[in-house]
């Protein structure tokens, strides 16, 4: 099924709703065309193209609801899927936390669709990868990378008059370059809505440089160090904080945002006062959808302002129970930065460790948001404002909350991709004191 226009989606959803006999009915429709190339050992390994579409119908009788989906779009199939969701609703137990569907909403016009990305051909993908491979081969290094692109639309309509529509494109690229002897490794990642911004050659040059420079790593003692975390490393730590903003968990006393004696840290100073974190669907560097899956508008929201927790995310049920606005979770987050480049942050560091990337991040203690993981693909020792030599990788045990209290400096913001969740963020490199490295790793 091709990507539907707003008018086509409206007409199709209207037709689906016309079959409904339930108290309430809501229909979600989405479709994607995606493509990818994967390469390793300086050679392409797998590559593919995937097309999918689905229609999801939710019907409700009182507090009982049922969901059914289909990927056929003729009239008989559309009616069948509505009937099936109604049958399921009648069989379902009552959900005391059921909340009636939303009525009509106002959404900002999203800026997530870029025609050039939607028009990617197998040849363009292949050209982008060829440019990357050439850099590695010329350096007599070994490249492994992944390029993927998505072109999709989503729409929803319900029996209370809500209608929403969005198209979006994105492309993510990541590259690891290793020296032939396997003693050095470097990494770079890029994410854009607009593929014309993607420079696979430049990203591969950065990864290659890191690989070559990291080859003669020395072991230094684990312990507390001042670190400069590049944005890709910042992303995987801070997203654990973004994912943990749920008000209900905090209210129930089982979150790092819960307080001794009850209550939450909403309104409390949690981290250094230079920390400002927000989301903005209309940011031109990180545009996201302007509505979420249950039809709520996604707006600009401040999460942490001058170090103070300004907002938490709410399900519609929990917001209704608490009598507050049901702010949905963000689809991408932005942290304000400073004016310094990464090089300037290094130049201002007496002793420290430069971290390119962090890997295998897992929660150790949800109470303190203590995380563990390792440095990877380019870890360097800094002394007197200069990178002195590559060092062996470390395991860390650190909490992003503690880390943001130990903030020294923020650099210039750039768009980056989390290797853990694939989500895109706008984040600065961060200089942090007393970052806890707990052991050495022999891994390259």
């Amino acid at each position, binding site marked *: 099924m091709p990507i539907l226009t707003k008018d086509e989606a409206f007409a199709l959803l209207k037709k689906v709703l016309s079959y409904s006999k339930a108290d309430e009915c809501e229909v979600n429709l989405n479709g994607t065309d995606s493509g990818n190339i994967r390469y*390793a050992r300086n050679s392409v390994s797998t590559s593919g193209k995937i097309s999918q579409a689905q229609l999801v119908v939710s019907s409700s009788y009182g507090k009982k609801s049922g969901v059914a989906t289909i990927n056929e779009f003729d009239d008989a199939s559309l009616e069948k899927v509505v009937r099936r969701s109604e049958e399921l609703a009648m069989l379902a137990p009552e959900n005391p936390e059921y909340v009636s569907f939303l009525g009509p909403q106002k959404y900002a016009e999203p800026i997530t669709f870029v025609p050039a990305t939607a028009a990617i051909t197998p040849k363009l993908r292949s050209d982008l990868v060829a440019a990357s491979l050439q850099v590695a081969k010329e350096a007599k290094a070994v490249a492994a990378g992944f390029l993927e692109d998505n072109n999709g639309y989503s729409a929803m309509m319900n029996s209370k008059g809500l209608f929403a529509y969005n198209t979006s494109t994105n492309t993510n690229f990541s590259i690891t370059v290793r020296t032939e002897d396997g003693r050095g490794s470097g990494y770079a990642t890029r994410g854009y809505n607009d593929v014309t911004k993607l420079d696979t050659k430049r990203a591969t040059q950065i990864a290659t440089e890191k690989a070559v420079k990291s080859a003669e790593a020395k072991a230094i003692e684990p312990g507390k160090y001042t670190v400069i975390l590049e944005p890709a490393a910042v992303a995987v730590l801070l997203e654990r904080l973004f994912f943990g903003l749920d008000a209900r968990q905090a209210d129930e006393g089982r979150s790092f945002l819960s307080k001794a004696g009850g209550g939450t840290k909403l309104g409390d100073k949690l981290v250094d006062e230079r920390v400002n974190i927000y989301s903005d669907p209309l940011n031109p560097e990180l545009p996201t959808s302007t509505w979420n899956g249950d039809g709520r508008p996604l707006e600009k929201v401040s999460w942490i302002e001058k170090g103070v927790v300004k907002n938490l995310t709410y399900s519609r049920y929990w917001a209704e129970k608490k009598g507050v606005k049901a702010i949905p979770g963000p689809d991408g987050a932005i942290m304000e930065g400073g004016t310094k480049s990464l090089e300037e942050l290094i130049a201002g560091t007496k002793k420290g460790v430069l971290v390119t990337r962090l890997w295998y991040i897992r929660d150790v203690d949800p109470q303190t948001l203590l995380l563990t993981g390792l440095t990877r693909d380019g870890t360097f020792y800094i002394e007197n404002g200069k990178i002195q030599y590559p060092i062996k990788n470390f395991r860390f045990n650190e909490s992003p909350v503690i880390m943001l209290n130990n903030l020294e400096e923020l650099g210039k913001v750039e768009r980056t991709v989390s290797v853990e969740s694939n989500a895109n963020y706008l984040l600065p490199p961060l200089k942090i004191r007393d970052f806890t490295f707990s052991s050495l790793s022999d891994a390259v």
Partner: protein
Amino acid sequence: MKRRDFIYLSGLGAAASMLPGIPLMGNPIDPSRALETVDVALKKQLADVALNAARSKGATYTDVRIGRYLNQFVVTREDKVQNIVNTESYGMGIRVIANGSWGFAAIDKMDKDNIAKAAEQAVAIAKENARLLTEPVRLAPQKGYGEVSWKAPIEKNSFQVPIKEKVDLLLSVNDAAMKAGADYINSILFMVNEQKYFASTDGSYIDQDVHRIWPAFFATKIDKTTGKFETRNSLSAPMGMGYEYLYARPQDKIAGVTTLYKGRYDMLEDAKAAGAQAGEKLKAKSVEPGKYDLILDPSHLWLTIHESTGHPTELDRVLGYEANFAGTSFLTLDKWASKNFQYGSKLVNIVADKTQVGSLGAVGYDDEGVGCGQWDIVKEGILVNYQTIRDQAHMLGLTASQGCCYADNWSSVQFQRMPNISLQPGKEKRSIDDIIKGVEKGIYIIGDGSFSIDQQRYNFQFGGQLYYEIKNGKIVGMLRDVAYQANTKEFWNSCTAIADQSDYRLGGSFFDGKGQPSQSSAVSHGSSTARFNGVNVINTGRTI
């Protein structure tokens, strides 16, 4: 579907943060539809359209997978059913070799024209990418099996069990945990049925029916005055079984400091224990960091085996195919070729097995039409083999694939995935108590917790669910804030005792992530309780 969409759909909330990465789940459907199957003759017809279309466009090899992936989740918290989700994902993936290069296309509308178009696209992608090859794909030879089938030997199809029975079980589990002291509990039943059809130009037409189940809960106790909280997760294992896994018999239980389960699981009994133990964890003594002898229960050890033996012996990692994401491996080919690389102590025997009954990885044939079997990975401590698939077998000098190819969906490209990898039980008669008796200063760890390992699988850190302090051969109380860190080779060489066959149990991962785009697979790891001497234990307690 992204992980957060799944979390939204399942209403998991707090529990989701304790789960590993969640894969693509497919589309919600009516539960009754899960009992329908697709006629094999129709699947053969559709597959032949793809095979012929690809061949006519210049493919020298083609395989087609028609997959119907069914999932059911029942999600509850305390006294509420949060969600009942039935999903189906049905479609076709076509993989070809043309001009020596792989190409792939996947579609969910399987009419003849669309299939032919997809086959053509797969060939076009392969031809376009051929210029990026350093050498053409070399497939290990594989005979065609003709028309064959394989079915998981389950006793009760989970999808035939009424929703009400599942809801009632989870609500009574929640009630038991709350009565025993928990303040909150999330519980979930995951059920999976993969109906997979494979056809290839080698002349195989393979129809398979795979079942998996995972009951799990997360029981939390809160101390309101201090603001501290602790969670005790279920000690269940995900299994390649039907609903019979939840019908525990007396012979499936192992008595001890807490009841452990073997082959079948008593969820209600475990929830009752968990409700009390969440409270005990809050009051437990914070661990003194240092070296301890660790006694690791199979409900914990499976994850250490998975991360430190399973992943580094994946040949694609060793060769560098996963360098950009999961990483490479310290178990390089020279170590294997030397025939004397001491991976572990002499007690350590590790076997790969795709046929183990009740395991998550059991199938008749892998996802590129290779019949499955078992082989040694580590023999008396020495690394002797890896895990591989058709296009990499020749790099080990093998003339046949080991049958380790898997795709998590029709829309995903199949690639090398881990078979069940298990530590063999000790040959001498030895019980858990026998092992504990000999320990002067140790910690007995039950259940899996936090886990992290580097990209070449040297340095790892693991937590658990229950930590019991051992002093002079006796369990003296519970500990908290425990995690151990080790180097893989040092750890396995410190293995000094393994309980016998009577203690052998399976653990496993329902959602093991690998590849780009990331795919998940399910895999089991068996062991008996084992002892590891002098392992470094850290204290994970912090204040914010």
